[in-house]
């Protein structure tokens, strides 16, 4: 699977899943309710920035702390097409895969991708090409069964078909 889109923002290390969708902001767990709460504590301008591109980039340990699946859902329902981080916290990684939010791990991505850059991301080979700068970088290739879960809409879709 190949994703071509623009980076809308590069976020720092240790963005906690609590802050991605804080209880204070979640007044409904519907897709719209979660989308509205997305990233409010980290970046109040998040939704505006999403107009400029659909690839979100972040540093290390993205989604740390809480196990709340809300965090991944909030990003998915906000329209994030692909989330690339240098590393993910374990439960966030599983949650995102399981709900069909496309995520991708790539050490050093924050050094080579900037807001506005257009990226070509090949999820099967793990190669990211930055069209704007011409640079390429190798990300971590996911095991095929995980890639299948993620790209076929999540775990429950897989369960339905099994």
């Amino acid at each position, binding site marked *: 699977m190949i994703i071509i889109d623009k980076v809308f923002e590069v976020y720092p290390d*240790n963005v*906690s899943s*609590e*802050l991605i969708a*804080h*209880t*204070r902001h979640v*007044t*409904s*767990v519907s897709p719209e309710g979660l989308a509205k709460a997305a990233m409010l*504590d980290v970046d109040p301008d998040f939704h505006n920035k999403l107009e400029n591109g659909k690839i979100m980039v972040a540093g*290390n*340990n993205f989604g*740390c*702390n*809480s*196990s*709340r*699946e*809300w965090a*991944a*859902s909030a990003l998915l329902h906000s329209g994030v097409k692909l989330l690339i981080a240098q*590393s993910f*916290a*374990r*439960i966030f990684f*599983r*949650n995102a895969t*399981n*709900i069909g939010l496309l995520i991708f791990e790539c050490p050093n991505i924050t050094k080579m991708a900037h807001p506005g850059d257009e990226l070509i991301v090949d999820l099967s080979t793990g190669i990211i090409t930055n069209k704007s700068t011409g640079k390429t970088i190798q990300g971590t290739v996911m*095991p095929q*069964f995980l890639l299948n879960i993620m790209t076929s809409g*999540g*775990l*429950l879709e897989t*369960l*339905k078909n099994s």
Partner: protein
Amino acid sequence: MNITEKILAKGAGLDKVVPDQIIDVAVDYAFTHEKLGPVFFDKFRDMGLTIWDKSRAIIFADHGNPPSRVMDADLIVKTAKFAEDFDLNFYNGEGICHQLMPEKGYVSPGRIVVGTDSHTTTYGAFGAFSTGFGSTEMAWIFAKGRIWMKVPRSLLFRVSGKLGSCVMGKDLALHIMKLIGSEGASYKAMEFTGSAISALELDGRMTLCNMAVEAGAKNGIIEADEKVIEYIKNRAILDYEIVKSDPDAVYERIFDIDGDALPPIVSLPGSSANSVPVTETAGVPITRALLGTCTNGRMEDFREAAKILKGRKVHPKVRLQVIPASRSIFSQCIEEGITQTFLESGVIWCNPNCGPCAGGHYGLLGKGEVCISTSNRNMTGRMGDSTAEIYLASPATVAASAITGKITDPREFI
């Protein structure tokens, strides 16, 4: 192999596993609660799924119970309905999942327990493998009783000596957080051993394993001993096996900690890895204090705090909220006179539940408030307004600070 690897190998029906191997594991118990279960309940029904073994799937209403918002009340209604429809054991308002899982006998050494809550790591204190999953994945587990996992690499923490007076499992946990950082154990197992660990009561061991996830760990684990057997012998539903690490077990890194030298530790607002000895932050004025949660809402915690609070008053500017982790702890506190001691010193005593720990309800922090808490997380906005500040500490330090109205070394009261 080490303890974690041995338990996972058995769960996967294999003789041997190695770190990074992806395996399919049968779980012994799985649970969810009212905050994260409703995320998958409807889908579970719509897809016509059934529970793999209804004696093995547990449901709690513990995070915001009794609820303060209609939305939270609805979540409990939904949760109760799911438990009823699928005929599952349901604990509604009896306490926090991480306390009730062992109390009700769902945890035994050598077993695999999973839950939709990150602090499921707590049961490593009983020599079990336990870890948290997200909601959607729990739908899969509830249906199949199995889940894929990657065998974690392991870190070994050898703690020598014995913790001093007023120094608790919490102080050790906060010290380790500082040592390795908030992603220092990402995806890894944290195994704790040494004389200071053996000397810890189970309550303190639970605190330690509870906080393993704050360093990003998949699980925390301690070899089971007689204290564990004593606790589970009249509780555990399934039989148990004491699993020990082999002498040649492989660890990615080994840390040696001198338990005798450890002072009380406090984490500064922002991250539990931001820890310093209490003496370095003593004197910071506080207005709120929380004694409870799945990290420190147990008997040892209340006994330590009661020693300090006995015959003393909570500072007039401080609200000290006490929340036992379960109903049986509540009743034990009454029996031992601890409840009376606390009430006389002016605490607010609450029913067993998570309280304001995750910022859901019940004692939230307002703008600019400063709280010292026995919970496990202190990032911005965790317990209320994003300008409020949270310091993390042991029950002893929280009790001492509640009396003086500023962060205080509990050793001053002994």
